[in-house]
């Protein structure tokens, strides 16, 4: 399973978390996600997510003009966004705990028998 597939479900939480740390414009958010280790994240996916979270009231925007070139649209988190992020943190904790338990416990067996198997 590709990381991008996995990412889809949690991108909202990741974006909210990044914006909660500090306000940011589209590409800035992309860059911070990449720096954090999510190299596969697509620019357009992040922009789309930002837009969707904004439409849902989780983010607010403000425009910062630039001396040279087009202006920047900054996103900041709203109380609704904070609430949403809290929920998603809870969900993620439970989910990751369950999956870690499930996947990582069987890891030794998998490496032995299936690492070079036909399903790889």
């Amino acid at each position: 399973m590709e990381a991008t597939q996995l990412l889809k479900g949690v991108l909202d939480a990741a974006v909210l978390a990044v914006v909660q740390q500090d306000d940011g414009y589209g590409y800035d958010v992309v860059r911070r996600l990449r720096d954090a280790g999510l190299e596969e994240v697509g620019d357009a996916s992040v922009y789309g997510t930002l837009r969707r979270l904004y439409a849902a009231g989780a983010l607010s925007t403000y425009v910062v003009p630039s001396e040279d070139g087009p202006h920047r649209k900054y996103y900041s988190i709203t109380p609704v966004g904070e609430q949403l992020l809290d929920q998603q943190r809870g969900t993620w904790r439970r989910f990751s705990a369950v999956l870690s338990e499930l996947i990582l416990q069987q890891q030794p067996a998998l490496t032995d028998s299936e690492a070079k198997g036909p399903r790889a």
Partner: protein
Amino acid sequence: MTTTAPTHEQQASRFAASVREHLSDLPEAELDELLDGLPADLAERLDDDGELGDPRQYADELRQAAGLPSRGEVRTAPSRRMRETLRETRIRFAERTSDFWAATPARRSLIEFLLALRPVWWVLRGLVLGWLLLMLAGHPVVNGLPFSFPALLLASVLVIVSVQWGRGRWQPKAWTVGLRRVTSAVAALLLLPVTGIAWNALTNPVYIESGPIVVDGLSIDGIPISSIFAFDCAGQPIDGVQLFDQNGQPLTTLHRDGGAGAEPVWGFDEERQENIVYDRNGLAGYAGMWNVFPLQEARAGIDRDPTRAEPRDATWPLAETLPLSPACAGAENAQSTTPEAGPAETSGGGPVGPDSAGRPDASGR
């Protein structure tokens, strides 16, 4: 990358425009929200690693992540579908065209040169539209071009609007963009013919005639005829010739339809530098007999008043002319003492009777 390559800002805005086209099925407001700030993000992305990828894929990803309906879901009517197909074709064409022109430095510099000429096009667009509007309004033209103060004013206003449009100003509503497109297309179509008309007007000035020039009285090729000199069959002058037209009306050289006070146009004798005023032929016994030729002439030098001169019998422009045929010549020679005419008389002139033609010399001279 050469120095003439499009800047990251240019690339970014082109890419953003392309993405926008791919999302064009979405409401305008939604698009504005979604793509606001995108060019800046894209430019920065290019500064980082120089890759944007495929705009269509990009648009799809954006759409999906934003939780917006995919193109197929929005699409409804067949006419809409056709529009979409047309739009796709247009986008592909535009992309291919722009790729072609961006491919080599020479092409890029040509495009840059043409872009530098755009203001010229803006001005021409205004002028051509002004011309069209004035033509539609039925403005009078000189040489195919309308010249008047209101025309100048209108042209100036349109040039200003056109230039402002060109600079991306004065287009608050979507319909003005449509209007700009339509007017640009019309202006582009008319540019060549209007340029041709203007060029023609500049190189071949045509003066408007206030009306056809009408020459009263008898004239030939617009030049008035004042007097008429007749010669007989033998080539000798005839005095007192009465002339009539095809309707049996007296043929005169009177000016102004022969009404009261009419007179023949004054003549001018180049050789003697004399003005000539005409009067009735000496043989014409009645006041209205202006159809008897040649007319009498009152001559005076250019510094004198010819109307005060005494009318005299006309000075003939030719003393005589060629006989019409040997027979006529013979008839003439019968009464002539010219020695060369002698043999002609014996050969052909003998049987001819005495000349019955009016001899001008007898009466007029």
